[in-house]
């Protein structure tokens, strides 16, 4: 009697988590920030997020199709990149320019190198930088926070608290009624997302905590206001969501620590001394580039391993 028995290599069962469940968790973790963006910047925020997510997914789908590669849209990573990019933009960013950013992120930085896991640079970060350099006007004018359902928010151009240099109350910085990109303003929402990611074991706390503590300590040492720096700009969204990207950060905990340390130092240097008021994007990108070296230096010692050439 012929039986159709499945023969596979051990192990014969796996954890229920898949790449798409992990990405779905990231999307859920970003949801509070999206809600906060809608609260402060109106329905335009939702529209921009939708456009970015749709554009990213479409670009990835088309690329894979045209290059005759297996479809990868199902793993939701394109959606995550789209949403992250949207949350890094001002709520009044013109749709066309945001779509250009999505193209850079998905096609140039990610798919051209082979797709998920093969990129060495964080797609959303590079796209944000490219948009900053190309469309500086759009990227440095921030709509002032209004309320939800207000349609297009007042074009009262406000600089971010960092750029303005004026003292903003900490509570405003924490809750988000300030100028800034859609996702970076409400720290409370970001922290909620952080807790969710930790609980679901998507990320470990190493990178975000090390990054934020380094910025806090270093800005204190250099005479700045550490709480202001902790709560301003893209630091929190960068530390929690962008620096922790699997593919572009080191694989071991020790490597992650070094990575986050570097990010923190560079961020403070950029914030204090460079022309740009915001240094998080550049810091993370530079550390992405250093990551292969960090990985090379932080190999784990095998249990009982003997130090010879095998």
């Amino acid at each position: 009697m012929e039986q159709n028995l499945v023969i596979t290599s051990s192990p014969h069962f796996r954890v229920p988590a898949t790449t798409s469940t992990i990405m779905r968790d990231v999307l859920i973790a970003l949801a509070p920030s999206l809600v906060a963006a809608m609260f402060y910047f109106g329905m335009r925020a939702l529209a921009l997020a939708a456009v970015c997510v749709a554009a990213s997914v479409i670009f990835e789908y088309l690329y894979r199709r045209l290059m005759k590669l297996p479809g990868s849209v199902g793993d939701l990573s394109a959606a995550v990149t789209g949403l992250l990019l949207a949350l890094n933009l001002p709520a009044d960013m013109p749709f066309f320019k945001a779509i250009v950013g999505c193209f850079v992120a998905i096609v140039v930085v990610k798919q051209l190198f082979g797709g998920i896991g093969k990129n060495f640079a964080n797609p959303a970060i590079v796209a944000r930088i490219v948009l900053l350099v190309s469309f500086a006007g759009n990227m440095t004018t921030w709509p002032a926070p209004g309320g939800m359902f207000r349609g297009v928010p007042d074009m009262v151009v406000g600089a971010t608290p960092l750029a303005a240099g004026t003292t903003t109350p900490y509570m405003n910085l924490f809750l988000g009624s300030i100028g800034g990109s859609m996702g970076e303003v409400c720290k409370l929402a970001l922290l909620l997302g952080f807790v969710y990611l930790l609980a679901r074991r998507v990320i470990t706390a190493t990178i975000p905590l090390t990054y934020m503590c380094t910025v806090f300590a270093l800005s204190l040492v250099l005479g700045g206001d550490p709480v202001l720096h902790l709560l301003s700009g893209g630091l929190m969204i960068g530390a929690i969501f962008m620096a922790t990207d699997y593919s572009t950060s080191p694989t071991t905990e020790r490597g992650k620590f070094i990575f986050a340390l570097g990010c923190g130092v560079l961020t403070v240097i950029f914030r204090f001394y460079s022309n740009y008021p915001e240094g998080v994007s550049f810091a993370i990108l530079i550390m992405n580039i250093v990551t292969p070296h960090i990985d090379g230096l932080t190999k784990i010692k095998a249990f009982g391993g003997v130090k010879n050439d095998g």
Partner: protein
Amino acid sequence: MMAKFRDGLVGPTVILFLFCAVTTLVLAFTNTATEPLILQARQEAADETRQQVLPGADSFAEWEDAESLPGGVEAVYEARNGTGYVFTSAAKGYNGAVTFLIGVNRKGEVTGVNMFEDDETPGLGARVGEDSYKDQYVGNTDNEGVDKIQGATLTSNALKNAVGQALSAYQVVTTGTPAPREETKTVSGLNAFLIILVSVILVDNYVLSKFLGICPFLGVSKKLDSALGMSVAVTFVMIMATAVTWPINNYLLGERYAYLQTIVFILVIASVVQFIEVALKKYMPALHKALGVYLPLITTNCAVLGVTLLNITESYSFLQSIVNSLGAGLGFMLAMVLFAGVRRRMESCAPPKSFDGIPITLVAASILAVSFLGFSGVVDGLFG
């Protein structure tokens, strides 16, 4: 005998020298013949630009007494028909100095403003150069009353200051009283070196900002050890070449023979590389073998020629030039080392067939270049 001469230490150098000497003579001859024609054409073009800011003027004569001008005003041209003056006025903007051409008429009113040279944020800073904005100064006798452009405050400030400087200069040239001498902040020795180093390694990295030396950058960065070896060799050549070309330029060539710089420098670089190669082969054969074919390739590395020429344009002193070339080499090394890591990571990548090899490497290099943009302005920030 001929063979020995050709392949020895002296032979190739002599041949190279002869070749360069002949080319130099041809160049010199051409230059002498065409110099007056070029000068005249240049003058006419410049006059035309100035006429744009001082309508009604014809030709211009340069104001000789540059010493009495206020800081930032680089030149003054008086219209021969008495309509007024055109001031070349530079002030600090977002990304360095921004130069404006400002025309002032006999009544002390601004007649026109043109943005001459700038390195400002594309899009943003350029708005300051738009007619709708800058022409707000036309008709003013002072530089007040014009709002800054949000998001381009520094560039707007530059224009405001430049106009202010031009109007002060107007006072100087019409009344004859020299401008008060400002305390110019000169940067002292060690600080200057630090500034040069930080600039050339981070802010104006030769590979990532100036895009020089891309060929070895792409070719040798695949493995970390060869990347390091190449960088060390390049740094060494840069310093040696600077040490030789700087005195040649400042004591031999001077202003008069400036057009000979390129060819003379190339000759020097080629000779230095040749000399180093032979010397290494004789005294440090292991290192020579390790560097292999990369060593003679340094001759064609445009970054090396670049650093020798840029030493001149930046008007560095001898020591500053040496520091500059050291920094350029170090910056090259930094870029190579960083990129070596990326290349290693890219071995596991799967680009499309058409992008495999150099194309995807260039894309990766562009991402690396973009990341260094963050350093812009760091020098001013760190060293005031």
